[in-house]
């Protein structure tokens, strides 16, 4: 037997691995004396087959306890190892906890199939998470200080392996350019080929940072007009939303001066577009609700942006009765079914960041409402997996719990609790 494991953070990223470490530390010294052939970690390969679904009344804990008891009864010994996550699929869910502006934050990696946390990674202040479109890596743009929350600031990009959760790249960003803001998913983005990460700088001047992930180096800053968010439409182009109500198309080009072009103004000055639009990099669909539930849509995948006829999520009567979107990630878009999911509730004006109890399902083509799900609790953020039978993810910041629903019926199927201090952001990959 071997008790070889690498002490350190990697061992602490999974509750199971931590338990194994503790078991190893409390093992009789005689057992430890029989140790070790190899100084490196022994790892378990990702599960080839998915575990059987839990039976009625069975929990992950009771199943693990039964398996451990059977193992013990059969004379089996414990062999602590550093675990690996199953290979990611469309239901790999990344839940980011900005922790109410704490200097140190965490990201929980959840397998939506089994509703289990399969790993965690640490980050600094208000990181911006990204996930590769093919699931091959995930990462974040993050900030740390030399004395926790003061001293010298370092901004950096970190990339992780989705199975081992080991960092595979650590790229420093010069002159601390990150925009420190409540986590808006599209303030950082990957190009479709997953080779470039783009991030937003607010001060001292609006700009977009270009990070070459393939070459593991910071490339350059592109100065832009007063426009916000980043929606890559190809490997060399991305769109932004500008103060004047237009979109800006930025064509990076190879090393040359970037070319910019504004679309027409597509919304009025008194139509307030939320900070958390939904965007599908696979088909270029941008779905952008307002405070009142008017939903603007643009297709960015062609040569130029084309705007669709806006949708009204609510009737005039419903608006009079106080219906409006609200929460953090208030909208999700499922590409295959062309459906919009909108988090909404009855609320007074100017309470647009309070959670909602309902999700509207809307046909993005016709604007018709397909369903309204009563989630039965206050939810701050929603997302959907992009597989054929999608899961609807509903995250409660106060309950610190991810509730997993069947997107077709709204029925809750499972949940994952104890997700940090104030989890707010759900990220999935359209694999």
């Amino acid at each position: 037997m071997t008790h070889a494991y690498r002490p350190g953070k990697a061992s602490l990223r999974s509750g199971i691995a931590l338990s194994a470490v503790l078991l190893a530390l409390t093992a009789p010294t005689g057992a430890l004396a029989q140790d070790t052939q190899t100084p490196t970690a022994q790892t378990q390969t990702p599960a080839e087959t998915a575990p059987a679904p839990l039976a009625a009344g069975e929990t992950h804990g009771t199943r693990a306890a039964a398996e451990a008891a059977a193992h013990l009864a059969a004379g089996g010994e414990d062999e602590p190892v550093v675990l690996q996550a199953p290979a990611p699929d469309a239901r790999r869910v990344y839940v980011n906890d900005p922790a109410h502006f704490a200097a140190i934050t965490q990201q929980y990696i959840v397998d939506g199939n089994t509703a289990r946390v399969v790993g965690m990674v640490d980050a600094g202040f208000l990181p911006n998470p990204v996930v590769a479109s093919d699931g091959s890596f995930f990462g974040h743009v993050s900030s740390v200080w030399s004395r926790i929350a003061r001293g010298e600031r370092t901004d950096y990009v970190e990339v992780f392996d989705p199975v081992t959760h080991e960092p595979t790249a650590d790229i420093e960003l010069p002159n601390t350019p990150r925009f420190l803001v409540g986590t808006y998913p599209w303030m950082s983005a990957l190009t479709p080929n997953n080779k470039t990460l783009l991030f937003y700088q607010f001060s001292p001047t609006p700009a977009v940072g270009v990070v070459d992930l393939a070459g593991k180096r910071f490339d350059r800053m592109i100065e832009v007009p007063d426009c916000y968010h980043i929606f890559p439409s190809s490997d060399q182009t991305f769109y932004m939303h500008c103060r004047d109500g237009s979109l800006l198309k930025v064509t990076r080009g190879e090393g040359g001066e970037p070319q910019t072009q504004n679309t027409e103004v597509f919304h009025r000055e008194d139509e307030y577009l939320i900070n958390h639009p939904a965007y599908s990099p696979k088909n270029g669909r941008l779905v952008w609700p307002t405070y009142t539930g008017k939903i603007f849509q643009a297709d960015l995948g062609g040569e130029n942006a084309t705007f669709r006829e806006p949708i009204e999520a609510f009737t005039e009567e419903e608006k009079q009765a106080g219906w409006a979107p609200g929460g953090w990630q208030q909208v999700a878009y499922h590409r295959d079914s062309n459906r919009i999911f909108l988090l909404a509730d009855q609320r007074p004006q100017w309470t647009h960041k309070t959670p909602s109890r309902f999700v509207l399902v809307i046909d993005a083509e016709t604007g018709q409402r397909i369903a309204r799900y009563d989630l039965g609790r206050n939810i701050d953020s929603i997302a959907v997996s992009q597989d054929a039978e999608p899961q609807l993810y509903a995250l409660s910041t106060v309950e610190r719990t991810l509730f997993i629903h069947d997107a077709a019926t709204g029925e809750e199927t499972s949940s994952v609790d104890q997700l940090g201090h104030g989890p707010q952001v759900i990220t999935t990959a359209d694999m």
Partner: protein
Amino acid sequence: MRTLVSATLCLTLLSAPAFAADSIQVITDGNAAAGGATVEIAKMKFATPEVTVKAGEAVTWTNTEALPHNVHFKTGPGLTEEHEGPMLRSKQTYTVQFNEPGTYEYICTPHPFMKGKVVVE
């Protein structure tokens, strides 16, 4: 950290009429030279984003709206350190005298999309 440095500069500006560089100096006693220019701040804009003055003349900014704004000079030719003016509330003014020819670009600190420049001949 940039913000700490900026805050310190802010305090310095409020108490000291001159910068170390002296290519620009804040006028706090109202004794600006004749001539110069004025810039109104309204609707999230510097109303005249480019003004031209002669060396030795001053520019006075007046915030005309409730939202606070300031004048924050970036480094550039003739200016080796950033200079961040205090936040101006409604009807407050800020006067800077320009002693050296050059182009001085500035922004509003919390609204970096507000940009302006002073050309000194």
